[in-house]
Structure formats: C-alpha cells, structure tokens
C-alpha cells in the first residue's frame, strides 16, 4: 500500500523523510562498508535488490478476485536483516515509483518508513520472539511459525504505519487522530488483513523450499 505522490502535505512528507533518513543512512553505510570490504559482495547485493523488487512485483490473490503485491518485508528482514532491508527497501521503492508509479518521490520517505523500516523491524522482532518461544517445538514447526508471524506481522505493521501516517496528515475534524486512524485502518483492512495472512503462508512455502536447497 504505497502512498501516492502528492497525497501527503509537504510538511508531513518532509518530516517522514527526516524520520526515515537515519535508518536509511545506517543501512547504506553498512551496505557500502560490506561492498568495500569484499568487492565480490557487490553482485550479491545487486542480486538481493533485484530479488526484492521482483518479489514485490509478484501478484498474490486478494479478496474479491483482485490481485495485490506482497510487501516482502518479512522475508527480507529474515534473509537480509532489517538494516540492510532499510537500504534495499529504499532502492526498491525508488524503482517502484519510477518504473511502476507505485508510490511517489516526495512520499518516498513516508513509504520507506512504513515499508523498509517499521515493517522489517516488526517482522524481525516477531521472528526472533517466536523462534525463542517455540525453540522446544522442533525446527520445522518453529521455523514455520516464526516465518509466518514475521511475514504476516511485517505486512500488518506496514499497513498500520501507513494508516498512522495518513491519520496524522488528515485528523478527523471531530475526534482528531484516533478517529481518523480508525477510519483509514478500517477502510484498508478489508484488503490488507487477508493479504497479510496470504503473505505469511506464501513466505512459509518459500522459506521451507529454500531450506531444502
């Protein structure tokens, strides 16, 4: 769920850009350090970035027969860790804005904050937590549960954060932020909640297959 170009007032767009900047800067720094330390890593990072973009361009079934795209936040966080995802996610979002018109350039900061920062961190947190809790349940079960929670929660956290951003920009005239948040979250939950479940299931299939390679 990308916030379109021009949808946020410019003050909000600037504020979210500032909020995302330290995460992205940290991610870019660790990425460039890794690449400088090992030049061979450059192509692998390229592969990871291309994979993230294509993953987020895949169609997954949504309610009412329409199709939507996975965020990839959960998978990316588990495979590449959240700091790297902040950088790769930003690059992916930039390409989405320029190649697919998904999300805008002035709203890039806001979208990065929800999709490349909050989503991956929430997913990573859920992954570690579930892994710790289910450590005794056997590797297959533990990994499956953790990956499902990571992907589903990563997707939900992204959508919740986007609703927060919209609610802050357009508070309800009567009840302010809470009312507006409820409205935005309510409208988007129709598609986003089933989507989060499906993304969780898809990611479990994906990670199970990767583990067997």
């Amino acid at each position, binding site marked *: *769920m*990308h916030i*379109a*170009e*021009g*949808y946020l*007032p410019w003050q909000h767009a600037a504020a979210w850009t500032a909020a995302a900047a330290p995460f992205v800067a940290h991610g*870019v720094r660790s990425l*460039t350090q890794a*690449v*400088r330390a090992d*030049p061979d890593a*450059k*192509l692998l*990072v*390229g*592969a*990871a*970035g*291309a*994979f993230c*973009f*294509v*993953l987020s*361009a*895949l169609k*997954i*079934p949504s309610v009412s027969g329409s199709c939507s795209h*996975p965020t990839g936040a959960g*998978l990316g966080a588990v*495979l590449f860790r959240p700091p790297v995802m902040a950088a790769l996610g930003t*690059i992916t979002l930039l*390409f989405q*804005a*320029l190649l*697919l*018109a*998904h999300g*805008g*350039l*002035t709203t890039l900061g806001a979208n990065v904050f929800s999709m490349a920062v909050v989503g991956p961190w929430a997913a990573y947190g859920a992954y570690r937590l579930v892994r710790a809790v289910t450590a005794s349940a056997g590797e297959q079960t533990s990994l499956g549960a953790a990956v499902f929670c990571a992907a589903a929660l990563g997707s939900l956290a992204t959508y919740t954060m986007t609703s927060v951003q*919209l609610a802050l920009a*357009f508070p*309800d005239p*009567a*009840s302010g932020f*809470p009312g*507006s948040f409820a*409205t*935005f979250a309510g*409208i*988007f939950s129709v598609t986003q909640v089933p989507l989060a479940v499906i993304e969780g*299931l*898809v*990611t479990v*299939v*994906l990670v199970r*297959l*990767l583990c067997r*390679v």
Partner: protein
Amino acid sequence: MLAIDAAAYTSPWRRVHPAAKGLLFGGLLVCALALPTWPAAPLVAAVALAAAFGPARVSPRAFARAAWGPLLFILTGSLALLVTVGGAQGAVALDPEGPARAAEITGRAAAAVCCQLLFAFTTPLADLLPRLTRIGLPSALVEVVALIYRMLFVTLDSARRVQTAQAGRLGYVDRRAWVRSVGSLGAALFVRTFHRAQRMQRGLECRGYTGELTVLVDELPLRPAALIAAALPPLLVAAATAAYVFIGAGP
C-alpha cells in the same frame, strides 16, 4: 518489459539532460504541493499533461494505464476524508466539510502524480542512475543501484517464464495452488538470482573487474536555454496562482 521504462527510451526528450527534466517536473511538483490547491493543482495538471502529450509525445493510453494505480489509492484514501468518527452526530457520520477536503487532496495528489509520470515517461534510468554520483551519492551505492536496475529485468524475465510454466500446470487454479506457486516461484527466483550473480562475477573478471564498476557515461549537454525553458512553466504556474489569490483577496 515495463511499459513506463520502455517508453522512456523512445521519448523525444531522452537527449534532454535529466537535470532539466528534473527542474521542470520538480518545479511543477513544488507548485502542486506548496501553492493553494485551487487553482494551482489544475494548472499544474494541465501543464504537465500538455507537456506529456505535446512535445514529450507520451502515449495517452500508456499514461492512463500507469496513472490508474496511484489514482485508485488516492480515491480510496479520500473515502476516509468524507466521514467523521466520534463527533456529535454519533459513531460514524458524513462530514459536511468532507467533500471539499477530499476534493482538495484528490486534486493536489492527482496533479502531483501527473508530474511524477511526466518525469518517469521521459527519463530512462540508464541515463539517470550513473549521474547520481554527481549529486554526492557514494559511487559504491550508485554502482549497486545500477546493478539492481540491470538485474531486475533479468529476474523479472525469469519470474514471468516460471509463472507461465506454473500456470500451464494449473498452478493458479485456486487459492491454495496459488499460495504454493508463488512460494515456490519466490524460492526459485532467490536461488537463480544468486547463481546468476556468481556467473556475472566470473564474466566481469574476464574483463578485468577488480571491484569497481567504472563505466563511460554518455555526455549530455546541459544547455542553459533548456534549464530556462524548464524553469518557465513552474514559474508561470506560480505567477498565475499568485495573481489569482491576489485578485481574489483584493477589493
């Protein structure tokens, strides 16, 4: 392979320096965002569309297809602006101010999307990305971004072929099959993309790769005339808006 991208390479504005296009698009975007939505947004949209369909010769069909996604988001989001929650009238009620607010935000965002598409449809990323070092981005980052740009097409191509193969074996026949197919597609792409990177590494080593992906960037003249021409439309929009507001606030 991607409609906007393919159109950008055949744009008559391709040989215009990205900085000039950036100035035009950025200037219009600032007008749309910073000036009063009425009348700035319609003016910006009109100028952007005129530029796109006029001198930049963007196909209206391709433009409409690309604009559909963001417009859908804008319209869905604006539904939320029509209602108010927890006010005097009860839990959920229509906001009497809502339509005006929704119209304002929809207009502003639609104008901004036109600017974004104007830029995207006229500026190929192969011309833009290598120049990002000139605005101070580290060259290692720019090289990685350019690599991602190249590799995403190769990966996208495999994704499409794998998907066609899966569909041939009824992999998208119902939702259960769909989940299994997308999951295995993602896993296959992951493995394949990294193998591809390893082979590409070998290929580059044959050509003397030592860690730097230095390439020759085509010279594009940045003519002052082009910059002035690019700055003119945003300035005119700003002036017209100012005149309108001034006259409206007058006697």
